[in-house]
């Protein structure tokens, strides 16, 4: 009697424990009628234990028919062997882990829901699948591997082994990577050291090895760039490899093409320079000839008409003498023209000999050169202090000479000739001005002002060959500046010229004009 009550008490205690367990416990009889469900089971199944006890499994859960769970129950009963089943119950879209214990009287099932874990697991697996797909389809070789103590691959995509010109299976053995990829032992040691040192240094700048050649049979078959990306908190790294072969080959081809093109260009430049130098030499010889040979006949014309005048003056009479004078005057004029032309031509061939110029001193000295003391008495020469500049002093002397002698010449007929000179610095240029109160010129013809042999006054009004201003323009242009002339007919003229204020600008322009 005590045994039975003890047993009931024990069973009662068991019941209490069983009721409190968070896993579901279900007991069936051999016909799959519910004999016991604990609270947890009720919650998991969504039915109160009272509502199910005594009921039949198949009646209460018809949707279970054909499911692996149902099949397992039946199988367990039949075989009397314990079954573990973790599975998905489709009708409810939930996962359960079951331990099914058969006995003579029926089944006892311990189960719990694993839906959440399963979902996470599935998501993870899905995500892993995606990642794998991405990695496999990147145009980059990717691998995850250990590097210390040996290179051992955890994962590798197709391109990884392809770019290294190896088969996947050939580099799986620990540290086999080096030998299989790099066939030359010397280079292998070199590159291995570089990579291992780079990674050990911990300096991210050293985690990249660019344009490493991979050879097969001594020939370079690929150029690859390898990168290592350490994975934190593990001794794994992500290795990437990209194929640079096309780029390297193209770069080489381009360099070749470039080199050949450059060589061809240089050859052309050399040819042209030779031609230029030759042309220049011809011009030199021409000028020499001109200067020498053209003058001799002029001398004869001038000289012999003089002799005519002197020795046979009486026979000639006044008219004859006048004619002789015309002949001589013209010979002289022609000689002047030749001189001016030669000077003009020589100028183009001359390189600038640059240095700082004290324009003030130069101006004064030239003024004294182009004027006689009598003229200086008459002329009011107003000079402001003018800027220094950088240029070719000889050429600048020519500029001042021409401008000043023009100013003097064209104001010579005035009672009170006034010549003023000043300068200013503006917009990076130094501008010089020479103003006179002479006859001036007609602005309508100002275009012709700087033309060679162009004159705006008759030879009888004012002497001159018409080359002076052309020369000035040539010189100033060589310095990278400009010349300008403005005038009011009868009132005077102002001539201005500018040179770059910056020494460097003058020098660089001088380089452009340089003739070797």
């Amino acid at each position, binding site marked *: 009697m005590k045994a039975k009550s003890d047993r009931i008490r024990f069973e009662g205690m068991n019941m209490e424990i069983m009721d409190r367990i968070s896993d579901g416990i279900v007991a069936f009889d051999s016909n799959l009628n519910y004999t016991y469900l604990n609270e947890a089971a009720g919650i998991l199944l969504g039915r109160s234990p009272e509502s199910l006890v005594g009921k039949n499994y198949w009646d209460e859960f018809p949707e279970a028919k054909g499911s692996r769970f149902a099949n397992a129950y039946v199988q367990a009963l039949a075989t009397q062997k314990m079954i573990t089943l973790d599975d998905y119950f489709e009708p409810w879209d939930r996962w359960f882990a079951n331990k099914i214990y058969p006995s003579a009287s029926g089944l006892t099932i311990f189960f719990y829901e694993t839906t959440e874990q399963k979902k996470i697991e599935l998501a993870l697996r899905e995500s892993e699948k995606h990642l794998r797909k991405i990695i496999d389809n990147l145009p980059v070789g990717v691998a995850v591997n250990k590097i210390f103590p040996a290179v051992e691959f955890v994962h590798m995509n197709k391109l990884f082994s392809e770019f290294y010109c190896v088969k996947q299976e050939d580099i799986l053995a620990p540290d086999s990577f080096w030998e299989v990829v790099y066939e030359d032992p010397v280079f292998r040691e070199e590159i291995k050291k570089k990579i291992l040192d780079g990674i050990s240094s911990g300096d991210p700048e050293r985690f990249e090895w660019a344009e490493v050649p991979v050879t097969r049979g001594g020939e370079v078959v690929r150029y690859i760039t390898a990168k290592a990306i350490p994975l934190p908190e593990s001794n794994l790294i992500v290795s990437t490899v990209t194929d640079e072969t096309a780029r390297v080959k193209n770069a080489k081809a381009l360099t070749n093409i470039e080199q050949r093109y450059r060589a061809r260009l240089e050859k052309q430049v050399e040819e042209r320079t030779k031609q230029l130098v030759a042309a220049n030499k011809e011009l030199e010889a021409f000028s*020499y000839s001109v*200067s020498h040979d053209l003058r001799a006949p*002029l*001398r*004869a014309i001038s000289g*012999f008409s003089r002799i005519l005048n002197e020795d046979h003056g009486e026979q000639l009479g006044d008219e004859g003498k006048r004619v002789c004078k015309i002949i001589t005057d013209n010979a*002289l004029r022609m000689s002047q023209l030749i001189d001016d032309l030669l000077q003009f031509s020589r100028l183009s061939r001359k390189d600038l000999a640059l240095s700082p110029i004290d324009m003030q001193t130069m101006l004064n000295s030239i003024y004294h050169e182009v004027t006689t003391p009598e003229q200086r008495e008459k002329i009011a020469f107003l000079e402001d202090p003018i800027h220094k500049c950088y240029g070719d002093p000889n050429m600048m002397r020519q500029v001042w000479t021409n401008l000043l002698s023009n100013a003097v010449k064209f104001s010579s007929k005035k009672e009170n000739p006034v010549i003023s000179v000043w300068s200013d610095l503006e917009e990076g240029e130094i501008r010089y001005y020479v103003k006179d109160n002479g006859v001036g010129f007609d602005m309508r013809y100002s275009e012709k002002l700087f033309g060679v042999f162009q004159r705006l006054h008759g030879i009888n009004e004012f002497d001159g060959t018409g080359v002076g201003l052309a020369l000035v323009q040539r010189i100033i242009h060589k310095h990278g500046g400009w010349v300008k002339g403005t005038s009011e007919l009868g009132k005077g003229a102002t001539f201005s010229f500018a040179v770059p204020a910056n020494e460097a600008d003058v020098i660089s322009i001088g380089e452009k004009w340089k003739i070797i």
Partner: protein
Amino acid sequence: MENYLKSDVLLVEDNPNDAELTIRALRKQGFANEIFHVEDGEQALDFLFCRGEFSIRSSSQPVKVVLLDLKLPKVNGLEVLREVKANPATSRIPVVILTSSREDPDISTAYELGANSYVVKPVDFDDFVKAVQNTGLFWLLINEPPIK
């Protein structure tokens, strides 16, 4: 002029017009008898070295000045200058380059070779005459010839 035995001035000038004008100018100054004129470099050298057609010349009677044009047939002016100045027998004779060419290379070369002066023949006759006369005046009257 057969007075080449006793000339003070050797004029080396291929252009007959220039020669005539030069001689005329010198004549005006009074040096008519003492000018000898040759027309090319070879003759100039023969004259100065007393050889060839001038072998009867005596080297003890050197000219007082040579007026030398640069552009000459056969042997050109600079060559003549070089030879004259290189030879101790003739190196002391004053040589005046009288020429149309103002071109730089000639001037410096001439001086390098030992020219005593360089005069550019002006186109203007008056100036030409003045140049020749001043030159003649200087070398023939003012300048002391080197003592033989």
